[in-house]
């Protein structure tokens, strides 16, 4: 069954590549200058003041994901990591910027083309209970997308569901169950199975283990690891937990209030972080037995609705200089695969 799974993934890749033949070395997905903003003031209050105000949830972020790569997006709540994931699936409409998959910019795609594209791109959400219809059995939840996207002939649907469940570590007997009859870990396995039935090229996983019990979390993390190595699926793994990111990801992007501040191969980021925020973040999540006496980060966080110029990390940064106040530093490549947005990184 594992082998057949591999052929699903391969056929999916073949299909993607047929749509737009591309070089194997080009990234699967390229995000360039992505800007997603939300209106804060609207309607009457906007008319009475000087028009609507906006919060830039994702502010000109650029990155690539290679084939078979796991990219981690880490940051605190409100840093925009979930918004990026949803924008890539076009669940949010970006204000500007491009998201290129196999040479096609999907920000300009029409609905029909988008439907086809969404098949190749699946999402696993944080809360598995709310991402499954409570009135549908597991079978119905898994069957509907297979029929909608005409993935396989109707006669093979059951077989396909059984395979997906088995690959996710669940017995096919779970098909007849309803979501409320399952535990959190089992529900997340169903959500993963549902994503797998589509043989996606890319899975966006948004905090998929943060709501699970600690003793079940390891099971699901290992499942992700196995699926990735066996089928070569690319994954965007969104998490606030640096330990989880280190375990699963090949590269990690660090977000701070809508900006990507540093992106680097995983071990390089952990052993030689350059951005002062990354350093602070790594200093806060200590190992066992670590004391509370590390370097302190003073100051309050950036206010994304009020402050619009300057480096987002200015108020907390121990290395700040005057020019950090006037413009946010641009992304700069300091080493192959290691980009950073900081004027003063050489001093660190």
């Amino acid at each position: 069954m594992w082998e057949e799974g591999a052929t699903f993934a391969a056929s999916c890749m073949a299909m993607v590549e047929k749509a737009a033949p591309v070089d194997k070395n080009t990234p699967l997905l390229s995000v360039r200058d992505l800007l997603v903003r939300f209106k804060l003031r609207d309607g009457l209050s906007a008319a009475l003041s000087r028009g609507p105000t906006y919060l830039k949830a994702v502010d000109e972020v650029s990155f690539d994901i290679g084939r078979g790569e796991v990219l981690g997006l880490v940051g605190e709540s409100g840093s925009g990591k979930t918004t990026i994931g949803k924008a890539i699936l076009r669940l949010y409409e970006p204000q500007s910027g491009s998201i290129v998959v196999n040479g096609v910019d999907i920000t300009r795609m029409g609905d029909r083309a988008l439907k086809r594209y969404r098949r190749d791109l699946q999402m696993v959400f944080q809360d598995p209970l709310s991402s499954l219809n409570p009135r549908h059995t597991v079978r119905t939840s898994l069957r509907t997308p297979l029929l909608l996207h005409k993935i396989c002939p109707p006669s093979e649907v059951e077989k396909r569901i059984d395979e997906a469940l088995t690959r996710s570590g669940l017995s096919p007997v779970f098909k007849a169950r309803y979501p409320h009859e399952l535990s959190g870990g089992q529900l997340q396995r169903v959500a993963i199975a549902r994503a797998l039935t589509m043989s996606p090229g890319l899975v966006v996983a948004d905090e998929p283990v943060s709501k699970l019990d600690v003793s079940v979390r390891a099971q699901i993390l290992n499942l992700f690891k196995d699926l990735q190595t066996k089928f070569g699926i690319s994954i965007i793994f969104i998490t606030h937990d640096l330990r989880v990111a280190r375990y699963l990801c090949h590269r990690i992007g660090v977000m701070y209030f809508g900006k990507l501040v540093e992106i680097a191969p995983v071990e390089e980021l952990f052993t030689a972080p350059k951005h002062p925020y990354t350093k602070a973040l790594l200093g806060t999540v200590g190992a066992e037995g670590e004391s509370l006496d590390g370097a302190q980060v003073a100051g309050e966080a950036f206010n994304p609705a009020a402050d619009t110029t300057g480096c987002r990390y200015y108020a907390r940064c121990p290395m700040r200089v005057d020019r950090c106040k006037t413009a946010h530093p641009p992304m700069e490549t300091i080493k192959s695969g290691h980009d950073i947005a900081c004027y003063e990184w050489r001093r660190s």
Partner: protein
Amino acid sequence: MSDATLTVRNLATGFKMGGRVMNVVREVNLEVRKGEVLGLIGESGSGKTVTGMSILRLLPDNAVTEADTLDFLGTDLLSLSAERFREMRGTRLAMVFQDPVGAFNPSKKISWHLKQVFERAGTKSPEHAARAKNWRQASIKLLADVGIPHGANVMRQYPHQLSGGMLQRTLIALVLVFEPDLIVADEPTTNLDNIVERQILRLFRDLQKRLDCGFLYVTHDMTIAAMLCDRIAVMYAGSIVEIGPTKQIFSDPKHPYTQGLLASALALDTKTERLQEIPGELPNPGNLPPGCLFEPRCKFAKAECRAKPPAMTDVGGGRNVRCVLYGHG
């Protein structure tokens, strides 16, 4: 032990559900000593919050709490009338919750909250009464103590104008007005970002040292427990399975569940190649296994584990373990 601030013996709490009582916490024995931080750790559903709330009598009406002993500095908390308990709670027994926003009245300024608490504290002693008169100055000093340097400005603001970290600091300041003998904190940093979390933990540790009070810290996070707690009680499915000094539990976990929990925890400072799993899932509280609650997931399980629940066994060094591997108590 004579220096115990809080002594809990054989605590059990259940909830009445449609004519029958569903037990969620049973056989909990612990004591919080003066000047010590006891960590109560466990996964969601392990009963750690219910244990804390049982001690503070903050559970809904359908809860039934029983215990052989529930002693707080010589006062029997079980027999205390509701009115007397209310007097004690918030003054000598304080608590800090997970969600600081919910602890404030959103329509009142921060100064109003501080004034309320100072006025109530004023009835405690003449010394406190004097402070209540000068509550503004006292508040500013207290806010400075919890790391808010511009207390006068903060007091003019409404709760929604402050960040989560600032609110949690303010809440801690409110708790400190009374100089309580015991603080119960239930996941007080869960809603905060990493950096602020570290600041608040540091604040807790400093204040706890200064007040020399007992501190019961409820958390699911082993890393926090390792940093903050002197002793740790590990809960699983409503029972304490292991209790002992933090260092020893981390270096030499005895109970198979504690061992699994530590093995499945990821380290930040080293690369983990393959994570160890604890197989299976937490038991359903309505349908618990007859013997040891961890038996269905335990790799050392044998026939006697299924026969009856194991008793706590003293394994020396101030450590107790609920597992047949270490004798029968």
